[in-house]
């Protein structure tokens, strides 16, 4: 019943999204494209943080890897199809996620956080130093390949076309992440956070579970990174920096890690704030930091908690999670 409601909301959002190019100016459509991409990034991050309870300081390594691989592939493989450019970005992050995950899977808590930070720093160092491939500080510029559908080809030079592509592909990825939280694997992640020991005694290999989740969320971040490159037609080392990890952490926190949609809201708010603040002042990171600190101090549950509380007040709807966490049965 609750899932039917959500399906309805999803369809409504896609429909609304489809009409946006008719309503929004190019500048805002651009921003919306960016929001959708970062929403996916934040959702993937929250599957680790909110669902599995794993605090990673290295999620940007997957985002950046996807972003760079797509750029590098487009530059070095002439006539590369758009699909393949994305695929290369995603497949590389799957491999990287699996390898790094295998090294991390025995660690939790602070060790896990520190190790992910270390790996991110390693990736960043490689990206900075390996100038011939990554362009180092200069970054890489690309031109979006056209989208070939076999019978026809759609120009991706048009922002509106690329917006639709993002809406469909990245939007579908977000929907899949939502679906994922209801699948056997998604539930396993929640159960492990609830009581990992008992899971072991019920036949679950919890290390494998963590590895699968880490690889999956890495791949999703890689997909977001790949679209990031395509969107800006440019990628710089900032995409793989710890700043990018901080950004996604902020989005998740501002939106709220206890619901699936919190980080989507967080991405929305973050990107809009960033755009407007950076127009007004060069010191926008300072303001963002200020907002982050106040959020953590005063509303640790994020905006989604605020909204749930308001809804509860207005409609007297009892929040069956008790505002507790994504671990509760329905999300």
């Amino acid at each position, binding site marked *: 019943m609750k899932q039917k409601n959500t399906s309805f909301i999803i369809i409504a959002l896609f429909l609304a999204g489809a009409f946006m190019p008719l309503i929004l100016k190019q500048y805002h459509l651009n921003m919306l494209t960016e929001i959708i991409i970062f929403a996916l990034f934040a959702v993937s991050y929250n599957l680790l943080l909110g669902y599995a309870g794993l605090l990673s300081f290295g999620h940007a390594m997957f985002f950046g890897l996807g972003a760079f691989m797509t750029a590098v592939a487009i530059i070095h493989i002439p006539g590369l199809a758009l699909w393949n450019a994305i695929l290369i970005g995603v497949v590389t992050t799957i491999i990287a996620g699996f390898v790094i995950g295998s090294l991390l899977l025995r660690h939790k808590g602070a060790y896990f956080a520190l190790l992910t930070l270390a790996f991110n720093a390693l990736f960043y160092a490689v990206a900075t130093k390996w100038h011939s491939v990554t362009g180092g500080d200069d970054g890489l510029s690309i031109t979006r390949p056209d989208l070939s559908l076999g019978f026809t080809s759609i120009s991706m030079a048009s922002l509106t076309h690329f917006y639709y592509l993002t809406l469909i592909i990245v939007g579908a990825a977000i929907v899949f992440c939502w679906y994922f939280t209801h699948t056997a694997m998604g539930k396993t992640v929640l159960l492990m956070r*609830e009581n990992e020991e008992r899971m072991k005694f*019920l036949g679950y290999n919890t290390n494998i579970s963590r590895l699968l989740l880490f690889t999956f969320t890495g791949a999703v971040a890689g997909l977001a990174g790949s679209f990031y490159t395509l969107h800006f037609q440019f990628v710089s080392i900032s995409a793989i920096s710890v700043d990018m990890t901080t950004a996604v952490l902020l989005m998740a926190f501002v939106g709220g890690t206890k619901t699936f949609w919190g980080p989507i809201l967080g991405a929305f708010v973050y990107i809009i704030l960033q755009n407007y603040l950076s127009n007004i002042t060069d010191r926008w990171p300072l303001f963002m930091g200020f907002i982050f600190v106040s959020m953590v101090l005063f509303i640790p549950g994020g905006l989604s908690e605020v909204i749930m509380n308001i809804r509860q007040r207005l409609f007297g709807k009892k929040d069956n999670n008790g505002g507790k966490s994504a671990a509760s049965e329905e999300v």
Partner: protein
Amino acid sequence: MSDYLHIQNIHKDFSGLKVLTGVEFKVKEKERHAVIGPNGAGKTTLFNIISGKFKPSSGAILFKGQDISGKPPHVLNRLGLSRSFQITNVFQELSVFNNILAGVRSHYGLRYHFFKKPDRDRNICERVEAIIDEVGLMDVKDQPANSLSYGKQRALEIGITLSTEPELILLDEPTAGMTREETNQAIKMINQVTAGRTLIIIEHDMEVVFSLANTISVLHYGTILVSDTPEKIRNDQRVKDAYMGEG
């Protein structure tokens, strides 16, 4: 024919503290085997070793002829061994249904599937309900575990233990802390749900022991003092001296 379960000379020390010093006993298939012994005797430690939580310092555990000592818990569970915990160890925030579902779907191989929803599988759901019914929790099926009474939480603990369809069940003091009436009910239920399987139960309550078990092992100071039928144990002078006091 080799024995069903053979605990062979198990030693365990925790950084110098020798808890088990050569535990040795056998369990036959379909046996109802009670392990008794004073507080701190090492009963739970023994379960922790059999179920894979700890590796023994030395010794072996032969399960149907195969040495299973040191294997991780999830592997042992898939071999058909399941245990309950002395201190209730359930998924506190989840409903009774979802608690049991975790084990049932694991048994059906739905552990890491990225597409299938476990609660959409009719066979799995039916099995979950059947187990909930067996342990007498049908009326609280949709309530979160942390809202249940102590007695019901203990029943849930057993339900979870059953949920992976084990052939060998280890129950660690399932009735501890229950009222007399709850205990009687629990014994009846345990008898029913473990029928046709092999049961090893740790228990302090001698009434429970004598009504459930057909073999009793007495663990004392890290070794098995004696392992025999309830009648023999009742009349064993060493057991009287060491443990049961007035008998």
